[in-house]
C-alpha cells in the first residue's frame, strides 16, 4: 500500500512535469530550476510523509513558539 502511494505520488509529479515542461521555453532557465527544485522537494516530502506520517513539521515549530501566547490569551 505504501509503495502504491509512492507510485501515485510519482505519477502525479510526472503529470505535472509533463504538463508544465513543454510550456517552458528555452530562455526560462531560472524558472526551470525553480520548477525542478520545488517539484523534487514536493515529491521528497510526500514520500517522507507516506513513510513517516507523524514527521514533525513547521506546524510543530510554530506550535512551540506561539502556543504559550495563545494559551495566555485564552485563559
Amino acid at each position, binding site marked *: 500500500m505504501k509503495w502504491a502511494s509512492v507510485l501515485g505520488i510519482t505519477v*502525479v509529479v510526472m503529470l*505535472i512535469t509533463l504538463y*508544465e515542461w513543454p510550456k517552458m521555453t528555452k530562455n526560462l532557465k*531560472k524558472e526551470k530550476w525553480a520548477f525542478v527544485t*520545488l517539484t523534487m522537494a514536493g515529491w521528497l*516530502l510526500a514520500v517522507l*510523509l507516506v513513510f513517516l506520517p507523524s514527521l514533525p513539521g*513547521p*506546524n510543530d515549530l*510554530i506550535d512551540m513558539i506561539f502556543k504559550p501566547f495563545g494559551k495566555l490569551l485564552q485563559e
Partner: protein
Amino acid sequence: MIEKGKISAQQMAIMMYPVIVGTGIISVPAVSAEYAKNDLWISPLWAALIGFVAVYIAFQLHKFYPGQTIMQYTEHIMGRTLGKILGFLYLVFYIQMNGGGIRIYAEFVTGVLLTKTPIIVVISTIVLVCAFAVRGGVEVVARVAQFFFPLYVLSMVVIIVLLFPDLNYKNIFPILADGLIPSMRGAIVPGGWFAEFILVSVLFPYLTNVEKGRKWGMISVFSVMMTFMVTNLLILFVFGETTSRYLYPLFTASRYISIADFLQKLDPVIMAMWVAGSFIKFSVVFYALVICTAQWLNLSNYRPIVFPLGFLTILFSIWGVPSKMVESEYNFIVFPVYSFFVQILIPLLLLSIAFFRRRRPALR
C-alpha cells in the same frame, strides 16, 4: 512586471471578502461563542479593527513603494539578506495558512457530507481547481470571485430569511453582562482571520485605480465585519447558550430550516455555496503565494511554479495534522497569534522603518 493583468479596486474588495469569510464562517462563530457567550455578535467589531489596521498598513507601505508587492519592498526596507529571510518567512506562512485553510474546508466537507471519502481527495481536487484559476492570472481569479460573490451573498440572505420563524431574539440578553472582556476574547480568533487583509498588499500593484484601493479595502473589511455580526446574531438567536457546542453552527442552523414541511434540508445548497466561497479564498491566497514566491526567486514568469506549489500546499495541509481536533487546536489557539505576528506586527515594523527612512533625508 510579472503580472500583466489589471483589476479594479472593487474587484479587489470582492476578492478579499471570501478570503476572510470563506473559511471563517464555517467554525469561527462557535469559538467566539465559547468565550463571548451571548455577546459573540460584538466580537467581530473588535476583530475588524485588526482588518482596518491591516489595510491601512498595506496602503501606506504601497504609497511609499508604488507598484511593489510586500515581497519587493521588504527587500528595500530591510536590505537584501534580511529581506530575503523575512520573505521566506512570509512564504512559509502563506503556504501554511493556505494549507490550514484548505484543511478546515476539507474537514468540514468530509465531516458532514463525504464521511467515507479520504480527505486527501477532497484537498487535492480543490487545490487542482484553484491551481487552474491561479494559472489564469489575477484577472481570472477576480472574475471568478465576481461571479460567485452574488450567489454567495444570496445564499446567506436565503438562510437568514428562511430561519426567521425559528429565531428567538431574547437570546441576546443580557448584553455585556460581564463587561467588554468576554467579547474581546471572543475576537481573538476572528482577529487572526481579519489579519489576512494584509494580502491586499499583493494586489495593490495590479489595481487600475490605486487611489481607491484604501477605500475599497476598508469597504471590504466593513462588509466582512457586517457578515460576521449578522451570522453570529443569527446563530445566537437560533441556538442560544448551546452555540459553542456545535462544531459548524451556521451549517447546523441551515439544516434546521423547515418551512411548511417541504422547504427543508437545504444544507447541500449551502454547502455548494461554501465550496464556491472557499474556492475563491484559496485561489486568492494561492495566487499571492505564487506571486510572492516568483518575486522571491526573481522569476520572470510565475506560471511554471503554480502546480509544484499547489502540490506543496496539499502536503502542508496534512503535515502534522492527524485529526480535526489537532486542526482546531492549531487554528484556534496557535494560528491567531501567529497570524497577528506575521501579518500585523511585522508589516507595522516595516512601515515604521520605511517611515523613518523617508524622514531622514528631509531632516538633513
